[in-house]
């Protein structure tokens, strides 16, 4: 899968290239608006990561030109401008999604996956990780032979972790997707911590194989073995 990253900040660009390559994406890097524009004109990409503030050619301008010329690759805008007007302007000009800097890398990956599989219905009815199983129709969770009693919020949280399993989910993602908060504040952080602790108690307590792990400074992950 070919990804074009248009980002002028060298360290961010390099980190994106490294991280995305590690996730088995084929990454092409453009560090100016001009370069990105010529790349787009010459090759086809499955996804474009576009920084809005670029030297040379403004990100929004690239976006408009792309859409005017009928290029349909999904575009994920990365921006430090989070004012509402900028978001609207970006989406109006044909961006498919946006992330506000500084974004969490796991969230970037999740958004990219969502954009790439867009249009394909999500037909999963059962989720499984090791001996942990979740039935989305009967809304029940079992670990081994034992049924787990979860509150609705704990269920949502576990579902989100299992859907992303074995990838790391950032706090921002939990705040937005599970708690439906547009801004992640200290209050939500506390709620996440408490719920993770409770969930961990129900899922992992007294079992040799721990499934829920904390990745310090990044977020949480549900996976077998070490994080």
């Amino acid at each position, binding site marked *: 899968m070919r990804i074009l990253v248009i980002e002028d900040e060298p*360290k*961010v660009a390099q980190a994106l290239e490294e991280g995305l390559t590690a996730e088995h994406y084929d990454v092409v890097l453009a560090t100016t608006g001009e370069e990105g524009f010529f790349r787009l004109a010459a090759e086809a990409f499955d996804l474009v990561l576009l920084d809005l503030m670029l030297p040379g050619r403004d990100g929004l301008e690239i976006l408009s030109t792309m859409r005017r010329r009928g290029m349909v690759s999904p575009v994920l805008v990365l921006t430090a401008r989070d004012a509402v007007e900028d978001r609207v302007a970006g989406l109006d000009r044909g961006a498919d999604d946006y992330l506000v800097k500084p974004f969490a890398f796991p969230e970037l990956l999740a958004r990219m996956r969502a954009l790439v599989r867009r249009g394909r219905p999500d037909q999963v009815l059962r989720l499984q990780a090791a001996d942990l199983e979740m039935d989305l129709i009967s809304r029940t969770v079992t670990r081994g032979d034992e049924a787990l009693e979860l509150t609705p919020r704990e269920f949502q949280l576990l579902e989100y972790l299992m859907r992303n399993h074995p990838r790391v989910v950032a706090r921002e993602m939990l705040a937005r997707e599970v708690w439906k908060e547009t*801004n992640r504040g200290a*209050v939500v952080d506390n709620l996440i911590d*408490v719920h993770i602790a409770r969930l961990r108690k129900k899922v992992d307590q007294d079992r040799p194989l721990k499934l829920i792990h904390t*990745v*310090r*400074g990044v977020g949480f992950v549900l996976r077998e073995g070490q994080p």
Partner: protein
Amino acid sequence: MRLQRTAGSLRARLTAWSAVVIGTVLVVYTGGVFLFLRASLFEELDRQLHDEVDLSAAALSRLGDGRVARLGGSASGPEQIGYGLDVWNLDGALLYSEGSEAPNLPRPGAAAFQSELERVETIRSASSSAFRARSARVQLDGLPVLLRVARPEEPLLDELYEFLVAAALGLPAAVGLACLGGYFLAGRALAPVGKMAARARTITAERLSERLPIENSHDELGRLGTVFNDTLARLERSFDSLRRFTADAAHELRTPLTALRSVGEVALGESSTSVAPETVGSMLEEVDRLSTLVDALLMLSRAEGGHVAVRAERFELRELACDAAEYLDVLATERGQRITVGGAEAAWVRADRQIVRQAVLNVLDNAIKHSPHGTGIRIVVGRAADEAVLEIIDEGPGIPSEHRERVFERFYRIDTARSRETGGAGLGLSISQWAIRANGGSIEVDDATSNGTCLRIRLPLDEPGSGTESARQQHAAPSDIRH
């Protein structure tokens, strides 16, 4: 109130000053007129005496026996009354006299006999009334004699006295009128000051774009107002640039933070052994804290610049309180605390529910964090006058009274050590305060509480009568249960 009083006393002072000035001018003027009147009256009398001396010199003649007599017989008639004429030879012997007052007049002094010139002087009669006397040396048929004509000064003095009486009566009346006029004029002149003061009082840091009203930019008050407005404009500009600086700084900090975060997270994701996950994780935690801080700063500077849209809707405050309590109940349960929501009345408000909810959550979260294990936290919703009131009362250590005003300031910490471990950048309450103010309300720490903290949020009530149709149907409670 104080400004008002100062303006009032300024008015009184201006009135007093104008009265003093006008009074002085009138006194001096009256004095001048008096002197002029006196001088001209005397001059007229003197001229009359001079004419009489000349006429008498022509009318008198020397008889053979050395006596002197008026040609055509002695004068008589009413003009003789209040008048005296006498003729002396140079040796001092009286040669002739006529007029009713002549016997009362004193003899001319030695100086009069020696003087070659005409003399005018005031003399006193035997009854000590003042006479104006004119004496001149004339030749009566070759004989040099001293001829004197005298007339009383009394009618003249009477006239001057009447003038003084009229002036003394008129002057206070004139000064009184001047006072009234001065008071009226000063009031008119100072009226713009009152308006300016009233407007100036409404200008706060949040409303620096307002200006003083100026009626005439060319008069003194207009110039003062203009200068004040210029100062306000400069103040507004510097506030703006401070805000812009905060926003720009916060904005610019995001780029390096993005780099730090991406580099760290990618490094952690790789299964290489070249990085110590604990170290990178710890750094990422700090990056996270910085990002939260930058977000909060940006949010505040944007809010203060008025760039955050407030979308008002009608909602019930107790319902919001229940929602917030339920949302954070899990945090309280963790600490063995109980949150209860009280208040019997529904309190409808019109505000941005999202923003108000965030503020209530912040305050409630604070209360949970700072209350000891096993205590209770009460949320009480009620109404006071035309305001909806939401109180969050905890049984924590409370806020010392000297900090109560300042807890809403940015980065303000009561106890540095304690706040550090409970986290937060010290902006939560600032943001809450902005949130409530942006919705036309206020937030304060109750002064009266001695144990625990009572945080009170007030929002303007939105009565059913003023609400939308659907809201009116939802809420059919009578509106007369106000305190």
